[in-house]
């Protein structure tokens, strides 16, 4: 009939199934480790220890997670409106301009809490601008957003090379980057947050933009499920024909959803620029825009799922680096394979085990029903 799979309880849908998918991904990853002649258990130990073993490691894990929360939310917001924004990478990159301009302008005269709000606005503005153009092209000209956002990633890359080598680079410097910001352009670390749990942050760049990411996640939840705009976006995402029927303007929603998405992607730039390097460097995004797609997929475009998914990818980044360091025969590329497996099983193949699980629950449901019947008789 029309719904081949009946509805499962929430804890199965959002808890058990993702966990099984994740477990299978790690099993297969273990096999890969076995194939290169290393001990998978040892690799697993380094992964977990590298991500959680010390306060410093946890700090790094959460630093990466912060980045992925922003880009994951960006993909999710567009996705709710039925738009596949692959341009998070470029939008985050261009968003960096907003952060850099705010810092370069005020870092020597103002404290961070004055610069930070300006940098937030700046990053969101430039990110939104970079998403506005593909959104507008889709709305007015019908240019497909998947194609245009990919193209805009390349344009962003070239634009930033130009800016960082010609415009924003201090005179006489050889490196394609801005000058290092003074104290006003440096975000405070969240060492106090970790010390509550008795952890020492060490050199980890875990900073206040993590709290901004959590606030953004809540704001996205509010937007999608509690506002009229979010309702219109979801209507269009599920059924453009129903949206037309309801008098919802497709072009308006396309442009607005893309700008919100781009704004969120742009805010990602705050974390590495103001939180870690205190300057804008070439290629500071480092693929986080693309990881955001996987995070949104795994988190089912729900902020409540995106945060744990972002932390998982933080673990893979931080713990993965540790594996590569401790086990020389496992290269950095192997880590990418493991990440790829997680994306494959948790994203693309997420329905693989669903029929079997549904059957198991159907059998359980029938037994329960039978018990009720015999009791009734």
């Amino acid at each position, binding site marked *: 009939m029309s719904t081949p799979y009946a509805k499962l309880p929430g804890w199965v849908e959002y808890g058990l199934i993702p966990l099984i998918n994740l477990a299978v991904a790690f099993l297969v990853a273990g096999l890969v480790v076995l194939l290169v002649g290393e001990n998978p258990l040892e690799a697993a130990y380094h992964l977990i220890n590298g991500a959680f073993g010390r306060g410093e490691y946890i700090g790094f894990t959460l630093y990466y997670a912060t980045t992925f929360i922003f880009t994951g939310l960006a993909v999710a917001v567009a996705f709710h409106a039925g738009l596949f924004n692959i341009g998070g990478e470029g939008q985050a990159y261009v968003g960096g301009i907003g952060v850099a301009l705010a810092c370069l302008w005020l870092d020597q005269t103002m404290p961070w809490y004055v610069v930070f709000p300006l940098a937030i606005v700046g990053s969101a503005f430039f990110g939104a601008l970079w998403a506005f153009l593909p959104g507008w092209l889709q709305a007015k000209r019908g240019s497909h957003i998947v194609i245009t956002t990919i193209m805009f990633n390349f344009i962003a890359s070239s634009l930033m090379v130009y800016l960082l080598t010609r415009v924003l680079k201090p005179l006489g410097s050889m490196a394609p980057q801005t000058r290092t910001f003074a104290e006003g352009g440096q975000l405070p670390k969240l060492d106090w947050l970790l010390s509550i749990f008795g952890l020492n942050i060490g050199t980890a760049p875990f900073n206040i933009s993590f709290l901004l990411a959590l606030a953004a996640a809540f704001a996205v939840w509010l937007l999608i499920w509690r506002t009229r705009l979010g309702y219109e976006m979801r209507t269009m995402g599920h059924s453009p024909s129903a949206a037309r*029927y309801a008098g919802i303007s497709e072009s308006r929603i396309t442009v607005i959803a893309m700008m919100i998405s781009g704004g969120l992607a742009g805010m990602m730039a705050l974390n590495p620029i103001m939180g870690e390097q205190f300057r804008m460097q070439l290629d500071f995004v480092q693929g986080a825009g693309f990881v955001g797609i996987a995070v949104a997929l795994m988190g089912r475009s729900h902020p409540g799922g995106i945060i744990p998914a972002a932390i998982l990818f933080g673990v893979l980044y931080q713990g993965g680096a540790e594996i590569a360091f401790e086990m020389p025969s496992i290269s950095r590329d192997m880590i990418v394979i493991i990440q790829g497996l997680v994306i494959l099983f948790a994203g693309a193949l997420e329905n693989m085990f669903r029929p079997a699980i549904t059957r198991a629950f159907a059998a359980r449901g029938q037994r329960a029903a039978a018990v009720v019947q015999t009791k009734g008789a």
Partner: protein
Amino acid sequence: MNNIAIELRGIDKSFGLVHANRNINLRVRKGTIHGIIGENGAGKSTLMSILYGFYQADNGEILVDGKPVSIRDPNAAISVGIGMVHQHFMLVENFTVLENVMLGAEDSQILNKGIAKARQELKRLEKEYALEVNPDALIEELPVGLQQRVEILKALYRRADILILDEPTGVLTPAEADHLFRILGQLKAQGKTIILITHKLREIMAITDEVSVMRRGEMVATRTTRETSVEELAELMVGRRVLLRVEKGESNPGDVKLAVQGLTVKDSRGVTMVDTVSFEVRAGEIVGIAGVAGNGQSELLEAIAGIRRAASGTVLLNGKPVDVTGNADPAELRDRGLAHVPEDRHHVGLVLKFEECENAILGYHHDRRFANGMFLNIDAIRKDAEEKIAKYDIRPPNARLRTANFSGGNQQKVVLAREMERDPDVLIIGQPTRGVDVGAIEFIHKRIIEMRDQGKAVLLVSVELDEIRSLSDRILVMFAGRVVGERSPEATEGELGLLMAGVEGRKEAAE
């Protein structure tokens, strides 16, 4: 001598938690027409899909000519002599009749040999069963009735002895349906066995020998058609007595609420779908638009509702013009008192993945009652949805349930409740009871009459001629985009049928 063509024993099938078929037993005698009726979602289609190999039964066995068979896929079904004519034809539009008939049964790598053989065989079949159709005609140029004939030929070409027809008359004019029934009679006379799936009781009574009734996945009864009645079958289908006739008083038309003048609508390829249509709908009357599906009714409704841009013409709502040729905004039209129940509730009227209460505000989400500034007022929305659920007896009564999990009838009630409870001046309704179970049809018809009696102007489009005739105060018949005639609801079915087929209308237009 075994005279059972096909027998099902204890067929059981579940999809996850949905038990679609429960322990189905069925015997179809050779050389008979066996009807299977049931409400939407009763499990008819699932059962036939099992018979044709689309699904595998969880339990039970199928016997053809007394021998147990395993039907793993449609090819296996064909090899035991089961052919199927689908509700939505499975034809390649830009192939000829001959090419379609032999598709998948080419018999050799080199087409020419096969074509010659197929042409011969097709001729023989045409003669034997009186199924004339030009083998070299392109499918897309054939009328629907002939396309269906090609589907039947396809099955016969594959030497089917048992033919399953799934809702075959849904797309046909009354005359075409009659012709189909004559063909089925012919096939029966030649010894073929026919299983006819339908929800139209009249068809069952007209041509079947035996009829089985399904309800909620179970086979509840089998009757000899001669010994049963429409009333008994309806009761078996629904599980309780149903009122088949709609009771309504005289209409009391008032002012013109909706006036359509010279409306022309073209599709994306520039083909004229609605051709200079003019009519008026007054307060307190129901104007029905009859016609075979695809004669411009859908486009007419969409243009009036502001979803589709018209090429020319004017529409007046409450005496004021609607910008149908420019940027008519459905949201603005709602504010001006137009409510619209679209033909396609799955893709247009509802968002199936939404919770019921979210669909209950679709199009009205800007309403002050449902919004505080930019935020939605979730409490008010849920409370309002629960009131409508109670008033329209929507089941299950759960405003948080996903809309896809409601039955067709209950989904339609969600749309109707939303549009009717807004107290509109003009209500336009497309296919109010398509895919809706008999019990809900009764309720929906009553509500439409109530709207009329409250002084609303109602414009009704339906491909169910019975529905149009029993609800409307005036009937307009559309054919090829034009209104070809206006009749009173007392007009005979034959008269309307001729208009719908474009026969009478052309004469009338010429005069």
